[in-house]
C-alpha cells in the first residue's frame, strides 16, 4: 500500500496525528481518486470538495496547535445519502428530495465530525434505502468495481463501492434488511449492522423505523471497529438509542476465537444457493474451527417467514414515514390548484416505482380490516423469529452464515422481478427483525472473481464478539487484501 487513498483508516489517522501526512493531502488524494474513478462506478451523488478541504485545513491547524482532533483525524469518509448533513444536499437518491439541503447534521454525522473525520461526499443508494442493488436510484445505478456490468448490492451500494474503490477510507451505510452487509459482501469489504439501538437514528431519513440502523463500512474489521466506536452510544434525540456505555471495540480484537461456540443455522444453507458461495462459507467455518472455535449446528425454524414478515413490517412503517414528502414544506412540489391533486402529482412524479410499490403494500397492510391479518400477524412472527435467535444464542456466542445466496448479479438482471430481488436478502433480513448485530466479512471469490461474504451474527449489544470473530478470521486469511481492478 503506497498511495494515500489505499491506507487503512487507522493508519491514515495515525499518520495525520504524527504529522507524517496532512489531512489536506489525504483529502486531496480522496477527492482525486473520486474524480478519477467515480465516473465509471457512480458511488457518489454529491461530492463535498470545498467543505472537505476546509475541514481538512482546520484539522491540520488543530494538529499544528498541538490538539488531537480524534480517532478519525483527517480521514476522508463518505456518508450514505439518506443521512442528513447540514448544508450539504441530502437526496435519499429520490427525485422528491433532489434539491433538499438539511438544516441539521444527523447525530452520526456530528459524531464523525467530532472524531475528526472529513466528509468527502454523499453516497448513492437505492431510493429511500429501498432495494438490494442500488438500481432504484433517481441519479442512476452504482456499479460493482469488480465487474462494472454487475450491481454492487444495496441499498448502501455507494457506501461499499466507495470504500472498495479507495474513494474514502470508510463510509456510513444504513441497514434495514441487509443494506450494509449485502453490498459489503458483493464488493469485498467489511460492513457491520449494529444492534438496533446501538447507534442513533436521529437525522437518518427513515425507511422502516423499527429496523433501520446505521452501520460502518471499511476495508478491514479493525477500521469498522474504530468507526463504530465513534458513532455508537445513547443520543437524547433518539429514544430508541440505548443508554448503554460504548466499549472499546478496537480493544476487543484479540485475534482469537479460541473457546467461542459458533452456531451454524441449518436453514441458511439452502437449495438454489450458488455452490461457490456455500463452499466458501463452509471453508470459512472450517477455518474458524481450526482457529479454536467450536462449531455447533443450530436451527432457526421460522426463517422461511422472514421475507414475508419483513415486507409487511417495513412497508407499513415506510408508508407512514414517507407521508411527509407531500410537496407542502420542502422537496419537490408539482403545483396544482387543488390540494389533493397537488399531493397526487407531486408524489407520482417524486417517487420511483419501488418506493411506490412499498408505500402501497404498507398502506394496504395497515388498512382497516387487514391490519390484524397482515401487520399484527407479522409482528407476532417477528417475535417468533427473535425467539429463534435468542434460543440459538443461548448456547452459541455467535452464528456464522452466508451473507447472500449468490455473488453480485448483473445490472438489470432482477429489476423486472421484485420478488427475486427480495430473495437477495434472505440471509440478512431476519437479523433486522431480531434487532441483532451482524458483520459481513470477505471470505472468498467465485470463479469469475466476484467477492463472497461471511456473516457473523451476535447477541444484542455484543458487537465486540462479532467483530472479534471477523477479525480473527481476517487475520488468518488474505481475502480482505484484494482490491478491485480499477
Amino acid at each position: 500500500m503506497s498511495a494515500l487513498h489505499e491506507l487503512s483508516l487507522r493508519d491514515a489517522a495515525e499518520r495525520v496525528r504524527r504529522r507524517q501526512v496532512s489531512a489536506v493531502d489525504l483529502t486531496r488524494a480522496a477527492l482525486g481518486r473520486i474524480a478519477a474513478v467515480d465516473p465509471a462506478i457512480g458511488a457518489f451523488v454529491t461530492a463535498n470538495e470545498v467543505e472537505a478541504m476546509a475541514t481538512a485545513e482546520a484539522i491540520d491547524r488543530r494538529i499544528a496547535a498541538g490538539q488531537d482532533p480524534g480517532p478519525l483525524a483527517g480521514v476522508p469518509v463518505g456518508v450514505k445519502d439518506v443521512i442528513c448533513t447540514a448544508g450539504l444536499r441530502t437526496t435519499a437518491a429520490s427525485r422528491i428530495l433532489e434539491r433538499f439541503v438539511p438544516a441539521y447534521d444527523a447525530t452520526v454525522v456530528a459524531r464523525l465530525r467530532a472524531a475528526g473525520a472529513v466528509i468527502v461526499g454523499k453516497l448513492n443508494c437505492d431510493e429511500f434505502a429501498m432495494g438490494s442493488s442500488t438500481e432504484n436510484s433517481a441519479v442512476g445505478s452504482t456499479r460493482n468495481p469488480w465487474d462494472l456490468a454487475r450491481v454492487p448490492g444495496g441499498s448502501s451500494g455507494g457506501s461499499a463501492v466507495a470504500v472498495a474503490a479507495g474513494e474514502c477510507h470508510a463510509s456510513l451505510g444504513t441497514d434495514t434488511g441487509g443494506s450494509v452487509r449485502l453490498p459489503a459482501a458483493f464488493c469485498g469489504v467489511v460492513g457491520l449492522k449494529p444492534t438496533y439501538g446501538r447507534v442513533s437514528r436521529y437525522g437518518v431519513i427513515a425507511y422502516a423505523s423499527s429496523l433501520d440502523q446505521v452501520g460502518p463500512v471499511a476495508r478491514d474489521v479493525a477500521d469498522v471497529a474504530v468507526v463504530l466506536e465513534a458513532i455508537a452510544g445513547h443520543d437524547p434525540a433518539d429514544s430508541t438509542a440505548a443508554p448503554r456505555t460504548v466499549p472499546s471495540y478496537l480493544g476487543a480484537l484479540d485475534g482469537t476465537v479460541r473457546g467461542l461456540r459458533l452456531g451454524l443455522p441449518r436453514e441458511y444453507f439452502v437449495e438454489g444457493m450458488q455452490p461457490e458461495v456455500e463452499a466458501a462459507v463452509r471453508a470459512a467455518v472450517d477455518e474458524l474451527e481450526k482457529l479454536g472455535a467450536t462449531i455447533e449446528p443450530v436451527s432457526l425454524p421460522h426463517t422461511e417467514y422472514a421475507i414475508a414478515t419483513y415486507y409487511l413490517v417495513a412497508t407499513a412503517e415506510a408508508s407512514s414515514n414517507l407521508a411527509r414528502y407531500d410537496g407542502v414544506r420542502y422537496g419537490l412540489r408539482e403545483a396544482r390548484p387543488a390540494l389533493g391533486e397537488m399531493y397526487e402529482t407531486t408524489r407520482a412524479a417524486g417517487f420511483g416505482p419501488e418506493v411506490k410499490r412499498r408505500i402501497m403494500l404498507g398502506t394496504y397492510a395497515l388498512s382497516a380490516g387487514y391490519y390484524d391479518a397482515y401487520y399484527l400477524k407479522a409482528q407476532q412472527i417477528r417475535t417468533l423469529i427473535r425467539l429463534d435467535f435468542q434460543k440459538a444464542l443461548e448456547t452459541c456466542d455467535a452464528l456464522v452464515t452466508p451473507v447472500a445466496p449468490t455473488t453480485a448479479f448483473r445490472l438489470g438482471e432482477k429489476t423486472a422481478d421484485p420478488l427475486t430481488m427480495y430473495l437477495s436478502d434472505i440471509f440478512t433480513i431476519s437479523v433486522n427483525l431480531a434487532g441483532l448485530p451482524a458483520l459481513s466479512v470477505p471470505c472468498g471469490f467465485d470463479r469469475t472473481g466476484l467477492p463472497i461474504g461471511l456473516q457473523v451474527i451476535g447477541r444484542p449489544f455484543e458487537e465486540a464478539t462479532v467483530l472479534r470473530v471477523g477479525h480473527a478470521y481476517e487475520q488468518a486469511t488474505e481475502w480482505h487484501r484484494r482490491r478491485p481492478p480499477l
Partner: protein
Amino acid sequence: MTTPALDGLEAVIGLEVHAELLTRSKIFCGCSAEFGGAPNTNVCPVCLGMPGVLPVLNRRVVEFAIRAGLATQCAIAPRSRFARKNYFYPDLSKGYQISMYELPICTGGHLEIFTEGETRRIGLTRIHMEEDTGKNIHDAHGDASLVDFNRSGVPLLEIVSEPDMRSVPEAGAYLRTLRSILQYLEICDGNMEEGSFRCDANVSVRPRGSTAFGTKVEIKNMNSFRAVEKAITYELGRQAEALGRGERLVQETRLWDADREETRSMRSKEHAHDYRYFPEPDLLPLVVDQPWVDAVRATLPELPTARRERFARDHQLSTYDADVLTQRKDVADYFEAGVAAGAPAKEMANWVMTELLRIVREEKLDRALVIREWPVTPLQLAGLVKLVEAGTVNRNTAKALIPRLRGTARDPGELVAAEGLAQVSDRSALEAAVADVLAKNASQVAEFRAGKERVLGFLVGQVMKATGGKANPQVVQEVLRAALAR
C-alpha cells in the same frame, strides 16, 4: 338551554374534549408551546417534520396526563403506547399525528356533575396524550394558503366520555366540570374561544326506555360552550324530526355552522378516514410505575366536587352557591381567604358572587387561568363585608368603595374613617334633613298621608341624597315615618 321536546325519545350524548396543556415546551421537541407569536417562530426540524427527525417525549406531559387521570378516578396504565394516526393535511407536518390508540395512558374514570339540583356521575372512557397540528391560514395571501406550525407539537389531552349524558344541560355541566377540574390541576387554561379547550359531540336519540343506541352523529366545529349547547340542541331536534318523518339516520360527521345555527353533513361513514393506526416505532412503550403515580397524587389539589361539598357543609352555603364559588380554584381560594379574615361566610359568598364576579366577568379577568390582579383583595372585600355587617357603612357605600380601593393596599375601615364616609345612624343628626325634605316635597307628603305607601321610598331616597348616601336607610325610614305621623 333546554333539551328539545323529543316525544318519547331520549338523548344520548358523549363528548370528546381536546385540552391543550400548559407545559412550557412541546410534547416531542424543545420548542416553546406558548400560544401566539409570529407565524413559524416556535418551530424546529422535529415539529416541522423534516426528514430524519425523531420525537422525544416531554416527561411533563405524562405528568399532566397522570394528574388528569387521577383527578377523574381513571386507572393509570403501567404500560401504554403511542401510535401513529395517518392522514394527509397541510397542517400535519409528518403526514401522521402521534397519538395513543390501543393502549392509552388513562382508562375508565368518571366525574360528578351537578345540574338541575342533582348530582350525576358521567363515565370517562379514556384520556390520552397527543400532539396538536399546525394551523392553515387561508385568504391572507391571495390564492395561496399558508401554514403556521407554531402549534404543531403542542401537547393535547384527548378526554373521551362515555355516552352517559341525557340532556343538553348535562352536556353543558359536564364540560364546565371537566374544564374546572383541568383548571384546578393547572394543566389547561380552558379557553374555548382561543381553542385551548375544544369539544366534539357524539349525539344520538333512542326511544325512551331502550338500552340499544341509536345512529350516532359526530358534531365538530363548536368553539364556545353556547355553541356546543346550541349544536346539540339543534342536532337532537333534527334527528327527532327525521325519525318522526320515518327517515333513517346515517352515521356521519356534521359541522356546526354558527352563523346559520345548524349542523351540516361533512362526511358519511363510508367516507370516514382510515387512519391506519399502528404503534409508533420511534418511541418506546411508556412505563409509569407506582411511585411516579403516587408522587403525582401527592401534588393534587382539593378538587371542585370535594370543595363544593366542603363549602356547603362547613360554611352552611346552598349547594348552588357552593357550586358557583368552587368552579374556579382562584375564586374559591378568594372566598376562603375572606372568611379566614373574619367575614361571615354567607355575606362573603354573596359579595363574591354578585359584586366580585360581576366585575371579573365584565372585565374578562376570567380569561386567565389564575386571576392574580383582583378588583379588590380578599382582605379588602372581607373588610367591606365586616363594615356593612357592623352597620358602619351601608351596602351602597361599600360597593362604591370597591373602585376606590382598587390597586391600593388601603384598609376599607381606614378609608371610611379618613373620608368620613361612616354611616349616619344617629336619629337627631337626621332630623334636620328629614324636615327639610318634607318641606320641599309637600305634594308627596300629601300623597303619603292619603295612603300612598310607595311614596315613602321616594322620600327615603331624597334624604339619602341630601346626606351624600351616608345615612343609614333603616334609620331614615324610621325618622321619616315618625315625622309624617306628626
